[in-house]
C-alpha cells in the first residue's frame, strides 16, 4: 500500500484511525458491561459504565478536534477526505452508543434494587445481536470490508424482529401481572436502547461503504439523481 509522501500527514491519519478504534472498543465494552450489570444483577458494573462514558466523551472531542485540524492544515482529498468525513460522522454514532449504554446501566441499577422478573432470554440475545452488529461495523471499518458492512445493513432486520418479539412478550407480562409494569417498562426501554444501538451500527456500516467505494448508500428513496 502506498503511503503519503508527507509522513507527518500519514501519522495524523493513522492517529485518527487509531483513536476511532479506541473509542469503538470502549463503547463496545460499555454495552457488554451495561447488559451484564442487568443480567448478572451487578450494579458495580453499571457504575463503571458511567465512568467509561466520560472517557468516550473526551475521545469524541479529541477526534473532532483532530479532524478539524487535518481539514484546515492538510486540505485532504479523495479517500483521505472520505476518511475525515466518515470519522466526523461515526464519532457521533459512537458517542450516542455510549450514552445508550449509560441509559441501560441506569435502568439496570434501578432494576437490581427490585425483585427479578421471570427470565427473559430474548434480552441477552438482543444484546448479543446489537453488540455483534457494532463489532462487525467497526471491523468492516478497520478492514475496509464493504461485504461485511453490507451484511451489517441486512442483519439489522433480525435485530428489529427480535425487538418486536420482546416488546410483545413484555406487553403480555404486563397484561397478566400489573405489578410487573414498572420493571417491565424499564426492560422495554433497555430493549429499545439495544435496538437503537443496532441503528447506530448500521450508520457506521453505511459510512464504511462510502469510505471505501465513495458511494453514499444512505436514504436511497430520498436520492435526487446526481
Amino acid at each position, binding site marked *: 500500500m502506498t503511503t503519503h509522501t508527507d509522513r507527518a500527514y500519514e501519522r495524523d491519519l493513522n492517529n485518527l484511525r487509531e483513536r476511532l478504534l479506541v473509542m469503538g472498543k470502549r463503547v463496545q465494552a460499555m454495552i457488554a458491561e451495561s447488559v451484564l450489570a442487568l443480567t448478572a444483577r451487578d450494579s458495580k458494573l453499571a457504575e463503571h459504565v458511567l465512568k467509561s462514558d466520560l472517557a468516550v466523551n473526551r475521545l469524541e472531542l479529541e477526534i473532532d478536534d483532530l479532524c478539524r485540524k487535518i481539514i484546515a492544515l492538510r486540505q485532504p482529498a*479523495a479517500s483521505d477526505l472520505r476518511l475525515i468525513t466518515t470519522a466526523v460522522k461515526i464519532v457521533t454514532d459512537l458517542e450516542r452508543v455510549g450514552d445508550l449504554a449509560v441509559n441501560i446501566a441506569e435502568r439496570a441499577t434501578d432494576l437490581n434494587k427490585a425483585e427479578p422478573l421471570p427470565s427473559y432470554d430474548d434480552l441477552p440475545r438482543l444484546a448479543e445481536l446489537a453488540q455483534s452488529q457494532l463489532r462487525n461495523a467497526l471491523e468492516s471499518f478497520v478492514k475496509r470490508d464493504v461485504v461485511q458492512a453490507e451484511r451489517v445493513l441486512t442483519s439489522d432486520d433480525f435485530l428489529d424482529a427480535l425487538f418486536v418479539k420482546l416488546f410483545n412478550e413484555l406487553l403480555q407480562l404486563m397484561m397478566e401481572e400489573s405489578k410487573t409494569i414498572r420493571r417491565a417498562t424499564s426492560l422495554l426501554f433497555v430493549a429499545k436502547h439495544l435496538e437503537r444501538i443496532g441503528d447506530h451500527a448500521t450508520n457506521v456500516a453505511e459510512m464504511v461503504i462510502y469510505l471505501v467505494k*465513495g458511494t453514499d448508500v444512505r436514504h436511497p428513496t430520498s436520492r435526487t439523481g446526481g
Partner: protein
Amino acid sequence: MSAQPKVKVRRLSIHYRDKTAVKNLDLDIAERQVLALIGPSGCGKSTFLRALNRMNDLIPGARQEGEVLLDGQDINGREIDVVDLRRRVGMVFQKSNPFPKSIFENVAFGLRIAGLRDKAELTARVEASLHHAALWDEVKDRLAESALSLSGGQQQRLCIARALAIEPEVVLMDEPASALDPLSTAKIEELMHELKSRYTIVIVTHNMQQAARVSDQTAFFYMGELIEVGSTAHLFTNPGVKRTEDYVTGKFG
C-alpha cells in the same frame, strides 16, 4: 454535457526529438467551462496546453501526431493561419510579461496589430478588457503609466486583459498564479469564475487546491498519458484510478 465540445483532441502524441511528451491522448474540452490540467512536473500537461494554440511549433525538434479540432476544424491544417489561431486561442503565462509600455498600450497592442485605428473604439475596448480582467478600478487613473510600475498581481491581470482584448474564444493559462500572493491569487481565481461565462478556459496548475477551486473539469496527466478526466468534484472526492487517488492525496513516492 450536451453541447459540442469547443476543442476535440484525438490521438494526440507529441515528441521532442527522442522523448515522447504526450502519448496518444483523447480529450474533449467543453465550451465555457474551466478545465484544469494537473500532474507532476514533466507529465506533459504544459506541452499539451501549448499544442492547443501551436506554441510547440516554435520548439525545435518538436513533432506531433493526431488532431486538435477547434470547433471541428483541425488547427494544424494547411489553411490555418497560425496568427489567427492564436488570436482565437489566447495564452497567459506563468510569469507575467507586460511590454515596457504604458498600461493602455499593453492592452491596445493586439488591437493595433489587428488593424484597429479608431481612437474611440480602441479606448472602449481597452477599458472593457481591463474591466473583464478586474483591473480597471485600480488603474483607471494611471493608464499612461508604465505597466512595469504595477504590482505582480496587477501585471498578471494586465496580461489577462491583454489576452482578452482581442476577444479570444479559448484562454490558455499556464500556472497563472504561481508567483502571486494569496490575495492576487484569489483575484485571478475569482476572475476565472467570471470569465467562463464568455470564454473556454484551460489552466495548468501545480496547486491542486487551486484546480479544485476554479475548474469544472480536471484532467490528471502522468508520464505523458491522460490518466483520468472528469468533473472536478468527482476527481477530488472519489477518483476512479488509483494513480489519480495517489496524486491528489499526496502519495507519490
